[in-house]
């Protein structure tokens, strides 16, 4: 039963990732990415990482992707407005770069499978995650918050200069 659900969710995740890459329409691609993020959250949930799953949906699917879709709707013109593909020359580089990425992926994934399986002992409940964030991982956690704050201030400065 659990395996069947896993296969179904994994199929949705891979399928939506393919949809993201293969769709020409930017909105469709972005919506496929939302589906992909949601199915990854479902995988987290199946591993007992409830907090991570909820955070994934709220932060990525519910907030960041909403902004992406919003920006695409406002800023990216439709096919009839941009005419023929402006990135035609950039496409030539796609094949070698893609091949390089594929080789790297094979190497990384192959190494992971050869080594010992990743052991997960920590529980995914919100208090366990919170405790870890404020003890073992306090420094990276605070560093991230400073980074986010810097980004926010930067955006404000840039936006104000325009106005």
């Amino acid at each position: 039963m659990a395996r069947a659900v896993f296969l179904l969710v994994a199929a949705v995740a891979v399928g939506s990732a393919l949809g993201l890459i293969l769709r020409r329409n930017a909105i469709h691609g972005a919506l496929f990415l939302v589906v992909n993020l949601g199915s990854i959250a479902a995988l987290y949930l199946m591993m007992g990482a409830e907090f991570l799953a909820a955070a994934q949906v709220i932060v990525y699917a519910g907030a960041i992707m909403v902004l992406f879709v919003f920006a695409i709707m406002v800023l990216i013109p439709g096919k009839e407005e941009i005419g023929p593909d402006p990135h035609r020359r950039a496409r030539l580089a796609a094949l070698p770069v893609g091949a390089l990425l594929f080789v790297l992926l094979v190497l990384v994934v192959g190494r992971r499978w050869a080594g010992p399986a990743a052991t997960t002992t920590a529980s995914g409940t919100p208090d366990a995650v919170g405790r870890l964030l404020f003890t073992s991982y306090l420094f990276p956690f605070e560093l991230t918050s400073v980074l986010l704050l810097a980004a926010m201030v930067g955006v404000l400065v840039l936006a104000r200069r325009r106005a």
Partner: protein
Amino acid sequence: MSVVADLGIAFGRVAFVMLFVLNLGGLLTWVERKQSAIMQDRIGANRASIFGFRVLGLFHPLADAIKMLAKEDFRPARADRFLFGFAPFVSVFFALVAFASIPFGDTLRVAGREIPLQAVTLNVGILYLFAMLSLGVYGVMMAGWSSANNFALLGGQRAAALMISAEIAIGASIMGVIMIYGSLNMQDIVRGQGRSFLGGWLPAWGIVTQPLAFVLFLTAGIAATKRIPFDTPEGESEIIGYFVEYSGMKFGMFAMADFLETVVIAGMTTSLFLGGWQVPYLGPEGFHLPWGWAWSLPHLVIVLLQVGAFVVKVCGMIFFMMLIRWTLPRFRYDQAMRLGWLGLFPLSIANIVLTGFLLLLWDAR
């Protein structure tokens, strides 16, 4: 046998919540018309009849549904085929599933089983609710974009911006409640509200411990339902909204999603601020009044009282939200956004700081 019973119980829990939300949402079309009629000294919808019976116009939702199903299902020629049809389903889906983590009663003990009266028991129930509310934006944005109509697109963007600003305020205002009751589990939060202050006189409901958060949450919640006074995204009668191009049942589904969201916000307010299924002075054994009077009741009666209290509170909240909807005029768009970002959000943050400070003082006593 026990597998069948387990499956039956799981199905029953889901079915109860789903039918409760769905039927209440459908009934709200009638409540909206009747309540506005009473408020404006009219009679209201009372014409639909079956074999001469009118029952206060209760058949009108039925007639509405048949009318919507029988209408032409129009699709603009340049619309995005798939997304145009899919958008109303997304809107309704997330509004429907959101209620799953709201507990409608305490644990029911029958025949040696302990049945949690909640569709899904989640440790992060409140985050789940929040996630489902925030995903509802996609239905609206998809509808606006896929209609191939610039006015619908603008409406969709107004809706998305309004809903995001409302959700930010919702998220920040429930933080205070989470801090007070120390859990992200909806059932734990409701159980925590069973304690009391002032020698047992005052139940420790969220509205008592977090009065500011209650006002902020309710305001943001009403904004999230996109109904008057925050209905600039749709404004059926004057402004063009994200569902202009929709007709028939698809249009009906968007209206339905707003009603379902009203039910969800009412359920959330009940669970977080009005004690959920808690009945004042009713403990697991029976009533215990502060002056020492006690009345023990059988378990089943207590559970029924609690479920009844939850339903009554949700209906009361819906009544209150309808009252607001028929009292206040519409906010202008910039006013609504300013209220969200410069009013509700900073106040919610201030509430978090204040709550933390008071909790420290309380613990240091």
